[in-house]
């Protein structure tokens, strides 16, 4: 009988032959469905936002329509090619392409390096892995430890820049209450811009980098009661980051679409009060 005294150390085996069949997966459920849906929605968004960014028109509803609605894809409109009236005044003169191409760098960078979207596109686009228990589609793997994926660590930089953009979009939403030639009022467009700004704030605040900066990096919460309180507010939002990420992504595209339809005269922006 083996006692504690005469027990020998179990030899450690690194490498060795694995068991089980040599197949991609033994899963028989619809594991492909989630990556397929993610792929479809993200691709649709990329196609729409690229078209909207390159088209460079119908992004502002101005005084002629008694409105002040600016698409979030073109805000802040800071190049000399911006439509007159789309605030603020032009500060960049050397950029001749669509202003959206310049502006979208920040939200694109923020979402591209977001911890949730990383999971989403690593699974659905890169198949690394496509689902849990399903083989990675690549022969070798170094993850985010080397260039270019090591650049995912700049997420926090985009978080800082994204907050500035949120402030600008909030100002846009407030400006949307202006109805030139009429006064102050609320239209459907006003509510759409307000909701869009709110969703983007919630998306930023629920982000993992925000949770860390609010209090996650602290070793002793008891010595930082304010940061602990902030961390406790952000943590439940962070748990719903995926849902918030999708909601804000879809809504920002719908906001652009609404402004675009009004600006091009396809629909009228109804005044509520």
């Amino acid at each position, binding site marked *: 009988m083996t006692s504690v005294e005469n027990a020998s150390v179990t030899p450690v085996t690194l490498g060795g032959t694995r068991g089980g069949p040599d197949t991609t997966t033994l899963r028989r459920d619809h594991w492909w469905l989630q990556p397929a849906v993610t792929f479809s929605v993200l691709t649709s968004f990329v196609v729409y936002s690229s078209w909207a960014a390159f088209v460079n028109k119908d992004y502002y509803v101005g005084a002629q329509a008694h409105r002040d609605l600016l698409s979030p894809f073109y805000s802040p409109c800071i190049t000399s090619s911006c439509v007159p009236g789309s605030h603020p005044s032009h500060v960049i003169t050397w950029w001749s392409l669509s202003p959206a191409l310049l502006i979208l760098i920040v939200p694109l960078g923020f979402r591209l390096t977001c911890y949730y979207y990383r999971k989403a596109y690593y699974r659905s686009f890169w198949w690394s892995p496509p689902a849990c228990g399903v*083989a*990675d589609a690549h022969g070798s793997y170094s993850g985010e430890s080397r260039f270019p994926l090591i650049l995912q660590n700049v997420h926090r930089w985009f978080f800082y820049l994204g907050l500035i953009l949120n402030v600008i979009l909030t100002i846009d939403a407030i400006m949307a209450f202006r109805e030139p030639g009429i006064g102050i009022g609320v239209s459907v467009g006003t509510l759409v811009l307000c909701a869009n700004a709110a969703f983007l704030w919630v998306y930023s605040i629920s982000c993992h980098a925000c949770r860390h900066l609010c209090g996650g990096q602290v070793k002793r919460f*008891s010595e930082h009661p304010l940061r602990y309180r902030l961390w406790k507010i952000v943590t439940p939002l962070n748990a719903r980051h995926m849902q918030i990420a999708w909601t804000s992504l879809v809504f920002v595209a719908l906001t652009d679409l609404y402004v675009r339809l009004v600006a091009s005269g396809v629909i009228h922006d109804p005044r509520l009060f």
Partner: protein
Amino acid sequence: MSEREVNMRVWRGDANGGNFEKYSLASQEGEVVLDVIHRIQATQAPDLACRWNCKAGKCGSCSAEINGKPSLMCMTRMDELPEGDVVVAPMKTFPILRDLVTDVSFNYEVAKRVPAFQPPPPPEDGYRMQQVDIQRGQEFRKCIECFLCQDVCHVIRDHEENKPAYAGPRFFIRYAELEMHPLDTNDRREFVRQKAGLGMCNITKCCTEVCPEHIKITDNAIIPLKERVVDAAYDPIAWLGRKVRQKRKLTPEEAVGTVSHDVATDPDS
């Protein structure tokens, strides 16, 4: 109590090879996969090897892959599995010993490399910690070391060559627990970045999906660790702060005050 006929396809074999063998037998209402495996042992294949102990989801012994999903056999109810054959295979990431039993000693080797808990010298009235300071780490203490998270992690599941340089989710929660411990004085951020392979994790959350203790491994351990690494290595504002204060970034060896490569001591003991 109702009974139904089930078809089990169980991996039989060792390092020299193997294949699935089919067993048809009755399963009673409320049974788990481990019950059926035990009945196969008792009635049809007495030499079928499987590891188990508590049958209550607390010992972490009976890890296997059921219909391709890493799971505990004792916590997977037969009546929750879809119709058709139930496929039971050993964990793929570790070398096979026999049938459903794998050699998980890779994990014990990784455990030895975790730099030890290092408290400051004890004050006269002893150490004191507040609940609010230790509650984050307590989630990680629920780990039962079933190693399902290590098994499902594609970094080593599909790339054996990464094993020497990658700690894996089970040990990232250990690193996170130590980093968040109010009394620990070691700084493991450079160590976890350069030596434990934190950058190889691409946060696809499979570890969280399979954890039988429902530990939020990715959100509460790995991402906070990645953010701490950003503090130390990639944040321009933190970098500027270090420059102003003339503070040099520590090497991994300097950062962990006691680079003890022994098994980490238990902070709660």
